[in-house]
């Protein structure tokens, strides 16, 4: 039985903050295929296309028939936990301060034996569900979970190292005026955040949904204008050391291609809210997040970013907006690398058109703001890095992976 987490006490401001360390992060290039799977929450191993053998650890040729470069494929995650040990001494500094630590050997139904992190509710002889998680070095790690959900399962000490669970953490939602921002505030509150700071620029201006937002448990409205560096800096100075999860919900969706517009006014606004807004947030809150990556039960955990899926491939009907989103996508990869030393994840939630006013003329399917918020919380709970929400986002992703040039013509 997992011991449920206890809500952490207020931190003594005089106490030294434990610096974040990373578990060993060196991997062969081939093994990085596991990180690709883990980032999406899939369980994939190499499967030989010639002799159908499932292979682990990752290899450059099939040990059944020497076929080169077996690809990573989704495989069944079931297995039996053959042996468990509780490691009590380690040569690695990260693990040393997290002892004891359980690992075990799992015989997968699909063939190979996997040395894995083992959830506290799994015992020798049990059926387990194998998963791939991103550990605090950002690399994939095999994690054996109970085959069926157990009480307080997410509170397992080792599992929580791999996830960004909102329980007992404090989140900042950057724009509470948007439907997505309000949905996120609600979802994070329901997921157990002890405080959900919600940014509102020019609070004297009323907005739809304000009353419900103010009534949401644990929500605290804070002044925040992402287009104003001073505003972002002021808020970070005030609450930066108490924010564990940043969720950027700032939007500026405007239709039209680049030639459809006269001048740069709208493009500048898009960039100011989305791209420079992301930069302001990252510069103001990022260093504190990275510094607090090992700060106890409510350590800093994640930066969540919503991206229009046409960041991957431009859709000329929203041509200028797609370009802004592409800039944000590129920036996200830099930020992901910059946050990694703190063990803080950068989560991209890709979406197609939303059920919001600026996508009003478009036909369905469209993604409801509540569905987007649910996906964000799910990604946090599972520790994912890349999530594609809704049919359109999934469709564009598949077409993009198949061939970006063909997708360009299709759009």
């Amino acid at each position, binding site marked *: 039985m997992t011991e449920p987490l206890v809500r952490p006490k207020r931190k003594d401001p005089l106490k030294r903050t434990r610096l974040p360390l990373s578990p060993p992060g060196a991997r062969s290039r081939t093994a990085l295929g596991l990180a690709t799977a883990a980032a999406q929450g899939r369980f994939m191993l190499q499967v030989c296309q010639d002799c159908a053998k499932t292979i682990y650890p990752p290899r450059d040729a099939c040990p059944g028939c020497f076929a080169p470069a077996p690809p990573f494929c989704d495989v069944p995650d079931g297995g039996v936990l053959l042996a468990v*040990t509780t490691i009590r001494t380690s040569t690695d500094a990260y693990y040393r301060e997290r002892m004891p630590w359980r690992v075990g050997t799992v015989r997968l139904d699909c063939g190979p034996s996997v040395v894995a992190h083992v959830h506290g509710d799994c015992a020798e002889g049990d059926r387990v569900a194998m998963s791939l998680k991103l*550990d605090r070095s950002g690399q994939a790690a095999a994690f054996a979970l109970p085959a069926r959900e157990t009480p307080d399962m997410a509170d397992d000490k080792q599992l929580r190292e791999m996830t960004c669970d909102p329980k007992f953490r404090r989140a900042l939602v950057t724009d509470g005026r948007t439907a997505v921002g309000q949905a996120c505030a609600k979802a994070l509150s329901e997921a157990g955040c002890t405080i959900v700071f919600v940014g509102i620029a020019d609070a004297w201006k009323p907005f739809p949904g304000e009353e419900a937002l103010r009534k949401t448990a644990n929500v605290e409205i804070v002044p925040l204008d992402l287009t104003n560096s001073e505003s972002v800096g002021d808020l970070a100075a005030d609450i930066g050391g108490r924010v564990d999860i940043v969720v950027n919900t700032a939007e500026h969706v405007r239709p039209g291609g680049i030639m459809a517009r006269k001048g740069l006014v709208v493009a500048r606004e898009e960039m100011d809210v989305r791209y420079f807004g992301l930069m302001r947030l990252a510069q103001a809150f990022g260093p504190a997040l990275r510094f607090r990556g090992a700060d106890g039960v409510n350590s800093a955990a994640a930066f969540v970013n919503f991206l229009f899926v046409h960041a991957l491939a431009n859709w000329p009907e929203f041509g200028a907006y797609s370009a802004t989103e592409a800039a944000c996508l590129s920036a996200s990869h830099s930020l992901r690398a910059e946050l990694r030393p703190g063990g803080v994840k950068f989560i991209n939630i890709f979406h197609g058109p939303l059920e919001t006013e600026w996508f009003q003329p478009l036909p369905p399917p469209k993604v409801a703001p509540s569905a987007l918020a649910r996906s964000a919380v799910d990604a946090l709970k599972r520790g994912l890095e890349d999530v594609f929400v809704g049919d359109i986002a999934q469709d564009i992703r598949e077409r993009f992976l198949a061939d970006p040039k063909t997708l360009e013509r299709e759009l």
Partner: protein
Amino acid sequence: MRRRQSYKGVVAAAPITIPYERFSIHGAHWWIGRALRALAEQAHLKPADIDGFSVSSFTVGPDTAIGLTQHFGLSPRFLDHLPLGGASGVVGLRRAARAVQAGDADIVACVAADANHVDSFRRTLSTFSRFAQDAVYPYGSGGPNASFALITRDYMNRFGATREDFGRICVAQRENALAYPHALMKKKLTLDEYMGARAISDPIHLFDCVMPCAGAEAFLVCTEERARDLGLPFVNILSTIERHNAFMDDPIQYRGGWVVDLEEFYGLAEVKPEDVDLLQTYDDYPVISLMQIEDLGFCKKGEAAAFVRTRDLTYRGDFPHNTSGGQLSVGQAGAAGGYLGLVEAMRQLCGLAGANQVKEAEVALVSGFGMINYDRGLASAAALLAKAS
């Protein structure tokens, strides 16, 4: 399959141990040099006389055997670098013996040595192998303690062995070590102390673990005639085997490659397990010694725990085992750990062992096991040696 040929006329001579140190400021080259010097002194050889060189070391990087030829002024016509850990000794012996037998070399210096600096163990672990880097070290970084803990757990579940059974091996080896001058562990160990030791990675506790240290072991391989001319103590090689990555489909390791070649191993030597007067197993973790006692035919699979319960494993006993104390009590000087049992068996058969001498030692079995690349030891090897007749 073609059968292995006899080693008639080829011998292993001049067993050398350079006493171990827990930590040493010296590098692997220094230890190898000391071993070569000791071999040369005993056999009255100059560097130019040594025309074969076989080396095993984890810490000699960035050098390999070829660089060492220049370092030590050797000009060999047979050169081997064996990164086989605990199987290095037996494999080094058998390859050198074939080289001598075929006329590729006259006299081969076989040396294993490793340095141990304050942080070198951690560095070795984190870069041990690609599979270790990708699929073991990031999981709690328990090193071999954790890997062997999983193998030990499974062995206990499968065959009903208990911690006391492992403890018997460790306690007997400590008793042997008290009679061996170069052992690093010089304090008597009781079964109660073994049982009460702190857990390292359950069910592995403190006295199941070897202590990393620095040191060197070495011997020469040459013809029997040459050994006699040089006035060297030597042993005859009756039979040897090696087998790697055997039973790769076993979900977890409970047996090793010895099983595959056992019939030929004893057949070539024309001896049976009951003819063996002393056994040197590779003992980094006692479960592996139990596995070897089974897989080398001293008892049936799964019965080694019962076997050791009824035997006296000390050098004075009815089943002398790891008579110098093994790595568990002498220390593990990296790849030299793979030579320790072989060099000790040579001393025993030559009557050079000292206080821990086994009486009437005629036939010795030396077993090697090595290289936890991912979840199991890949290399296994064994040699049957006999007192010079």
